[in-house]
């Protein structure tokens, strides 16, 4: 008898427990829905406190920013001025210069392999390794190619970043929040284009002239091309476009009337490592 009673009790408590658990699960699940309904009906002010982004007249906007590089217009001089323009406007260290001994005493010499690259020169066989044909036209063997971040549609670096320091903006620019970067370098492993550089050391001694308009990066942070998002916001073309003498054009890839689309319509253009499915937004007119 006692045994039976005990059995019954334990059964009922289990049933009671399951009931309570079920009700609380429903309650927890319903809470956000109730909250959402109350906000939608004007109950909450969470919506009104959202920042209102008012598009200003001088801001350059696009649905998806892209770049077209005309390889026939790229010469050594253009490459030099483009790289210098990018370097100066983003405070990118130049490891080829000698640091000022007075300002930065006892600076260790820089290692070339630790250099910071946003846009740089590359040979054809390195930029397009899968397209290195047996009998390649001679001009491609010597032509300098400018390579940079491709601002991919399916950016692998964005998927790899564990802290969301790297993210994709609505306008297609893959950009970094340096504050959030923990320097794990997963993004560098993920990027098939080598477009990301890690700050192994303090960059200040190797910056010739600091541009106060743009921050410097601290040690232990990854950085890369940001398509001059800070310049686009002021209505300016990216620094590389300005310095390229017409070789680089930046515009809206989704807008059929844009200059980049007109160029792509008329010319044969290729993208780097297209077969990987990252959908790069940088096109090279051959």
């Amino acid at each position: 008898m006692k045994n039976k009673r005990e059995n019954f009790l334990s059964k009922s408590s289990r049933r009671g427990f399951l009931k309570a658990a079920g009700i609380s699960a429903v309650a927890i699940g319903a809470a956000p829905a109730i909250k959402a309904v109350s906000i939608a009906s004007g109950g909450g002010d969470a919506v009104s406190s959202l920042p209102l982004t008012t598009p200003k007249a001088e801001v350059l906007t696009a649905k998806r920013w892209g770049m077209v590089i005309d390889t026939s217009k790229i010469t050594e001089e253009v490459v030099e001025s483009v790289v210098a323009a990018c370097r100066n406007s983003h405070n990118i260290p130049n490891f080829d210069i000698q640091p000022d001994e007075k300002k930065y005493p006892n600076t260790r010499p820089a290692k070339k392999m630790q250099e910071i690259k946003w846009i740089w020169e590359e040979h054809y066989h390195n930029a397009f390794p899968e397209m290195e044909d047996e009998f390649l036209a001679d001009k491609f063997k010597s032509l300098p190619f400018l390579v940079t971040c491709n601002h991919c549609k399916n950016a692998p670096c964005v998927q790899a970043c564990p802290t969301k320091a790297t993210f994709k903006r609505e306008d297609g620019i893959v950009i970094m929040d340096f504050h959030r970067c923990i320097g794990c370098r997963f993004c560098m492993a993920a990027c098939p284009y080598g477009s990301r550089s890690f700050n192994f050391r303090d960059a200040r001694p190797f910056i010739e002239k600091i541009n106060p308009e743009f921050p410097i990066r601290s040690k232990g942070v990854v950085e890369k091309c940001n398509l001059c998002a800070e310049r686009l916001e002021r209505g300016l073309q990216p620094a590389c476009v300005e310095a390229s003498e017409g070789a680089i054009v930046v515009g809206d890839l989704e807008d059929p009337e844009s200059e980049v689309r007109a160029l792509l319509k008329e010319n044969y253009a290729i993208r780097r490592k297209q077969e990987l499915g990252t959908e790069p937004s940088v096109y090279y007119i051959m």
Partner: protein
Amino acid sequence: MSKNVIVAGLVVFVVAALFPFWFNIGKTSAAPEAELSAKAKAAKKCVLDKYDMRANHMTILNDWRTSVVRNSDRMYKSTNGKTFGMSLSTGEDSCLGCHTDKAKFCDKCHNYASVSPYCWECHTDPKEVTQ
């Protein structure tokens, strides 16, 4: 017998526990006031009220960072209707654009409170750049 040992131990404990107090006797100084530049004085009103700013400037800087980097919105409309550039150091309407002396405005209190924010590892004081 053990009384002496206990008392001696207690004395040692009390002296050790009060170390920060007796060690700093005579060294303390009054909390510094942030010195306003002539430009900041003339403007009279900052982004937030004085006391709100004193307590929450780090939060607002954090919000600004998110707004600039994530939403590419760089203008801040303050409660008094003025707009400010959401930047530490870039432009006339940024923090340092008005509070021109970083040493007297930022560092003074931060040093006193022994906080070392890493803003200036990356952001540049316009003065540092021109030197």
